[in-house]
C-alpha cells in the first residue's frame, strides 16, 4: 500500500516536472547612465537604448535556448545620473530578486555599485568602463569586465600601426583626465611594440558647442595651424575620449598623414560594419529588433548577458555562485563572432577579446596581428598581462 502511494506520488511528481513545470527564472539588472555624451559627428550620437539594447538581444537569444531547458531570463533597467551614487538603484533591483547586474557606469560609480552588493552575493558585469585600474589595483572578485581596457585598445591599434611600419607617431592628447589615461596606454604600447612618439601635443578643451552653423570654416584653418611644425611622423595618433577635436583631424592635418586612435582608424570591441565570422547574423538580428546599428557598448552588454545565459545553460542553475564559478573555470568560452572563443583572464576577470580596427565604413583589420606571439594566448598580447598585473582578487 505504502509502495503504491509512493509510486503514485513519484509518477505525479514526474508528470508535474515534465508537463509545464515552472521555468527557472534568472533575473538580470541593467544599470546605465542617464546622460549621453556629446559627439562631434551626428552619426556617433548615442541612441537612447545604447547598451541595454545589446543586453535585450542577448536575453532573446538566451530565452530561445532557455525554452529547450525550461529556463527564462528577465531584465529590469535603472538609470543613474552622472556622479550620483548608484547604491540605491542596485539595492532596489536586488530586492526584486536580481543577482546579476550589467553595469555601464564610470569607474568610481561602478566600484560604489559593487560595494553596495558586498555580502549579498551579487555578480557585476562591467560593460562600459574601460579603465585599466578596475582590472588592476581596484579589481574585485565579483566584477567581470566585458568592456576592453584602454591598454587593450591601445595595443590593438599599435600592433597594426607597427605591422604597417608606421612607426613615428605624433600624439595629440585631449585635456581631460580620461585622455591622460588613454595617452598613458598609447605610450606603453609604443614602448612595447617598438614605435616612437616623435612629439606630444595637448588639445585644450576650452568648452563650447560641438554643433554650430558655421563651424567648418574655422576648423579647416585651425587644425593645420595646431599641427604645424611637428617633427616628421607617419601617423597622427589622437586621444580624445570626450569628443572635443579628434574627429576634426582626418583630411585637415597639416601634412597628409593618416589619423588613428579616437578618430580615423579606431580600435573598438565592435562596429556596425563588422560582418565576419557570422557577425552578419548578429547584426541582422539586432537591426530587426531595434531598427538601428549595433554599437560597441551594445556588444559589451550583449556579451555580459550571453555569458550569464551560457553559464546557466551549462550548469543548469541560476545560482550566482555556481554561475560565477563556471565563468571563472576552464570550461567557459563565449562565441561572440570574433573568430575565436572569448575567455576570462582568471587573474583579473577581464574578457579576452580581439580588437577591431574600424574606419567608420569597414573593418580595416582585427588585432592581435599575425606574428605577435604569446606563450599562452595571443589575445594576451593585448593589454596588461598576468606577469605585470597589480590585481589581487578579493
Amino acid at each position, binding site marked *: 500500500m505504502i509502495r503504491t502511494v509512493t509510486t503514485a506520488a513519484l509518477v505525479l511528481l514526474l508528470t508535474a516536472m515534465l508537463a509545464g513545470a515552472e521555468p527557472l527564472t534568472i533575473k538580470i539588472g541593467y544599470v546605465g547612465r542617464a546622460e549621453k555624451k556629446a559627439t562631434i559627428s551626428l552619426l556617433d550620437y548615442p541612441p537612447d537604448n545604447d547598451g541595454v539594447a545589446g543586453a535585450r538581444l542577448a536575453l532573446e*537569444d538566451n530565452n*530561445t*535556448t532557455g525554452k*529547450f531547458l525550461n529556463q527564462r531570463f528577465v531584465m529590469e533597467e535603472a538609470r543613474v545620473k552622472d556622479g550620483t551614487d548608484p547604491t540605491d538603484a542596485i539595492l532596489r533591483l536586488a530586492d526584486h530578486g536580481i543577482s546579476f547586474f550589467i553595469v555601464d557606469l564610470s569607474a568610481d560609480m561602478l566600484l560604489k555599485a559593487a560595494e553596495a552588493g558586498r555580502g549579498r552575493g551579487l555578480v557585476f558585469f562591467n560593460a562600459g568602463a574601460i579603465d585599466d585600474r578596475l582590472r588592476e589595483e581596484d579589481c574585485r572578485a565579483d566584477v567581470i569586465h566585458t568592456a576592453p581596457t584602454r591598454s587593450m585598445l591601445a595595443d590593438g591599434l599599435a600592433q597594426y600601426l607597427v605591422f604597417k611600419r608606421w612607426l613615428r607617431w605624433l600624439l595629440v592628447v585631449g585635456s581631460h583626465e580620461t585622455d591622460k589615461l588613454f595617452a598613458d596606454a598609447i605610450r606603453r604600447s609604443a614602448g612595447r611594440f617598438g614605435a616612437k612618439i616623435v612629439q606630444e601635443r595637448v588639445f585644450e578643451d576650452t568648452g563650447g558647442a560641438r554643433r554650430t552653423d558655421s563651424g567648418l570654416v574655422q576648423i579647416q584653418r585651425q587644425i593645420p595651424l595646431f599641427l604645424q611644425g611637428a617633427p616628421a611622423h607617419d601617423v597622427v595618433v589622437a586621444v580624445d575620449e570626450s569628443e572635443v577635436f579628434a574627429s576634426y583631424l582626418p583630411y585637415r592635418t597639416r601634412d597628409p598623414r593618416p589619423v588613428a586612435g579616437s578618430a580615423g582608424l579606431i580600435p573598438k570591441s565592435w562596429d556596425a560594419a563588422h560582418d565576419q565570422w557570422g557577425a552578419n*547574423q548578429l547584426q541582422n538580428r539586432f537591426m530587426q529588433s531595434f531598427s538601428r546599428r549595433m554599437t560597441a557598448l551594445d556588444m559589451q552588454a550583449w556579451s555580459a548577458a550571453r555569458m550569464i545565459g551560457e553559464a546557466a*545553460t551549462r550548469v543548469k542553475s541560476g545560482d550566482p555562485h555556481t554561475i560565477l564559478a563556471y565563468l571563472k573555470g576552464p570550461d567557459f568560452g*563565449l562565441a561572440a563572432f570574433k573568430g575565436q*572563443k572569448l575567455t576570462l583572464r582568471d587573474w583579473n576577470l577581464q574578457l579576452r577579446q580581439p580588437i577591431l580596427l574600424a574606419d567608420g565604413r569597414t573593418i580595416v583589420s582585427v588585432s592581435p596581428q599575425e606574428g605577435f606571439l604569446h606563450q599562452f*594566448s595571443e589575445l594576451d598580447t593585448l593589454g596588461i598581462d598576468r606577469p605585470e598585473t597589480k590585481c589581487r582578487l578579493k
Partner: protein
Amino acid sequence: MWLRTIGGICVAFVLAGNARAYKAYVSNEKSNTISVIDTAERKVVGTIKVGQRPRGIAITRDQKYVLVAVGDDDTIQMIDTASNRVVDTLPSGPDPELFTDDPSGRLLYVANENDNTVTIIDIERRARLGDVEVGVEPEGMGLSPDGKILVNTSETTNMAHFIDTATHQIVANILVDARPRFAQFKDDGSELWVSSEIGGTVSVIDPLKRVVKNKISFMVPGMRQEAIQPVGIAITHDGKTGFVALGPANRIAVIDGTSHQVQKFLLVGQRVWHMAFTPDEKYLLTTNGVSNDVSVIDVAALKVIDTIQVGELPWGVAISQR
C-alpha cells in the same frame, strides 16, 4: 599521326584507369560562382554564375540538379547538371546556409540562419511545406540514415536538436560545445558527429540514447588552441575513418571511427571548411576558404596529392555520383 593517336588513347586510358571522372561542384562564397571540377583530370572545367554568397551545396539524388544556398538572396538555386545553368529556385527562409534531403530525394530540410527555423521543402513541387522552430542561428543539418530523425545544430544556442521527421516536433535537445556547425551521421546510424567551431571539439552522440558519448579534441603541435576550429565532417561508408576540417588550423584531422582517437593531421589550404568524397571513396576534396583552392586527399594513403585553384573563398563542395 598514328603514334599520336595511340598516345592520346593511352593517356585517356590511363586517366580512366586511375580514377573515374566525377564532377565536383565548389561554391565560391565571394565570387558568387560554382567551380566545376573534373575529379579525374583534377582541374576546373567550368564556372557557373549563381546568386549572392553561395555556401551550402548538394546534388539531388536523381543527379539532375545541383542545389546551392545563396544566403544573401534568401533562396536556394537549382542548377541543371546537363546545362550547368541556374534553372529554378526553391523557397527557403531567409539566409539559407546548409540543407539535407530525405532518402526518397523528395524533401529538402533547410537551416535558415536568420530566423531560427528549419524549413521543409517539397523539391518536386518547389513548395514550402512548413517550418520547425529551433535555436538561435540554425546551421548544421544531418538526417539519420532511416530518415526518421533530422538533426539541426544551432550556433548560438549550442545544441543539436533532434526533430522527428514524421511529426516535425523536436524530440530531444543535446548540448554540445560552442558554435556547433556541422552534423554527420555514420552510414549505419550508430553515431552522430557534431563539430563545435568555437568549442574546438567534435561531440560523438549516441543517437538512440541521445547522449554525448565521447568528445574529440585536437592538439596540433605548435598551433595555438584558438586556431583549432572544427567545421566540416566526412566519415567513410564503413564508419572506420572520420575526417574533420579544422578551419584556420589549415588541417584535416583523421580520426579512427571506432576509438575516436586522432590518428593524423593532413596539411591542406588555409581556413578549410568542408569536404566531399568521390563516390568510389578514393579521394576526398576539401574547400580551403582563404587560399582559394581545393585540396585532393588520397583516402587510402591519407596524403594530400593535389591542389586545384578555384574561385574566391571556396566554401562548400558536392560531388556527382556518376
